[in-house]
């Protein structure tokens, strides 16, 4: 498996998302505006998994919501390739408690008016190891299972950009590793999909990303842009694990201190 999921590598792909001079300030009643993003530039190509790391409260969720078009930037712009469809995997799964797993997973398809959304959703849930739980209520699922539904819901709309907001942060290490493997497998089948992964977990970033952006303190700008062009699976042998540890250390150094990216 090559470092990139496509054969030619992402260098040949056009940018699916381009962010130019993105500035965001939240208006706060009775207070000064709260500057969060201070002029951010980035590009994500088809087939590339871009990780974004930065201090807590530094504006990473804000960035994803801007790319998804959920909020409007104060200045600068987000340019998606023509017809490119973003899909968001929220940090909390945001499942409707009154819908079963499969009905939740199918929601995005329903929004598109797709035919037969439920069978399609059930099939993908099966691929994600949830065959036995397709008709379970969200309250009957473990947190890891809910995150799979969350992921399935976004993948089902066949997005061109997948926006992942710390999707694995609430999981135990074992489940997280398993979901990493599942995600990589799903991405192998979707070679042109661009992914933006916000994460606090440097091991996760080193294990998954093709490239990592390190954000500065608020108001955030890009402090460093680190390629991690290693083949998957990255921890298969001793040499791979050594490489991985090297990238992780570099990320840690770029972030300032490991505490700078401490989990919530």
């Amino acid at each position, binding site marked *: 498996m090559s470092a990139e999921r496509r054969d030619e590598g992402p260098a040949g792909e056009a940018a699916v998302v381009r962010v130019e001079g993105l500035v965001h300030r939240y208006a706060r009643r009775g207070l000064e505006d709260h500057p969060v993003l201070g002029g951010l530039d980035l590009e994500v190509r088809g087939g590339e998994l871009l990780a974004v790391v930065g201090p807590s409260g530094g504006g990473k969720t804000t960035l994803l919501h801007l790319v998804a078009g959920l909020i409007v930037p104060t200045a600068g712009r987000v340019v998606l390739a023509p017809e490119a469809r973003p899909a968001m995997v929220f940090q909390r799964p945001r499942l409707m408690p009154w819908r*079963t797993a499969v009905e939740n997973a199918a929601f995005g398809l329903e929004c598109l008016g797709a035919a037969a959304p439920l069978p399609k959703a059930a099939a993908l849930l099966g691929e994600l190891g949830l065959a036995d739980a397709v008709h379970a209520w969200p309250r009957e*699922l473990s947190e890891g299972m809910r995150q799979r539904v969350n992921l399935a819901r976004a993948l089902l709309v066949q997005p061109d950009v997948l926006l992942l907001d710390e999707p694995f942060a609430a999981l135990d290490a074992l489940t997280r590793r398993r979901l990493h493997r599942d995600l990589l497998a799903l991405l192998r089948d979707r070679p042109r999909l661009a992914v933006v992964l916000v994460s606090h977990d440097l091991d996760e970033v080193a294990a998954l990303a093709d490239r990592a952006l390190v954000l500065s303190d608020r108001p955030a700008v890009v402090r460093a842009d680190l390629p991690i062009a290693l083949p998957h699976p990255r921890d298969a042998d001793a040499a791979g694990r050594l490489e991985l540890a090297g990238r992780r250390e570099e990320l840690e150094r770029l972030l300032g201190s490991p505490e700078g990216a401490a989990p919530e």
Partner: protein
Amino acid sequence: MSDDPPGSIDVASPTRTGSPSSVPWISVASVVVALLVWEGVCRAELVSRVLLVAPSRIAVAGVEMLGLASVRADIGHTLAAFAASLAIALVGGAGVGLLIGWSPVARQVLQPFVVTFHALPKVVLMPLILLWVGFGLGASVFLGAMMAAFPVLTSVAAGVGALEADLLVLARAFGAPRRLTVRAIVLPGLAPFLVSGLRVGISYAMVGVLIAELAGSGRGVGHLMLLFLETFEIERLFAAMTLVAGLTLAATGAVGVLERRLGRWRPDPA
């Protein structure tokens, strides 16, 4: 939150029912015992038969009474007033509740009136209602609807406030058409609030209707009760009261069934 390992959940089909409804035997027994004690007290003539009538005699009087066409007409009259009050209260209460819940401007405009009328014992309006719409069905429906609308209104307004902003953002993120957002997120979120408002509204509507009838509308079960009191038909009086209680219980029970159907996704009450 459950931490069950994947695969440990027994889920077979989408048409799942809740846990098998178990009969609350202890409650049934306590009701039976109470009825027996009541019956015994009356048979032993511990209480004057004018003040308290035995359940068995109430039952006999009730069956007898239901044989009379005029009584059936009065029951129909009360039921019609009850149904109309409830329907008006539901539509009006939910409508104003949605408005208040959704629009801050509407809330500020309407809030003073809602608070005032909510606090007002609606019975004091009775003379005015009689003046406006006269005796009869109109008065019953007016008072019943007034009384039932407020619990529906406050509950629905609270439901709008409790709608999960996260889910509405989710709908936006997936570009959900407005109708799908309403069907998939807004209505299921509001349903429990509407139903609990309805549950309270039912007994209020019945109270309103009966007050109007007791105030002298000349028709309905309330009127019958007045009549039986005047003619000293105490057994029939008790039968009429039992009938009202039964109707209200039945309506509340129907709401309970609705509630369970809508709330299948909730954890079973332990």
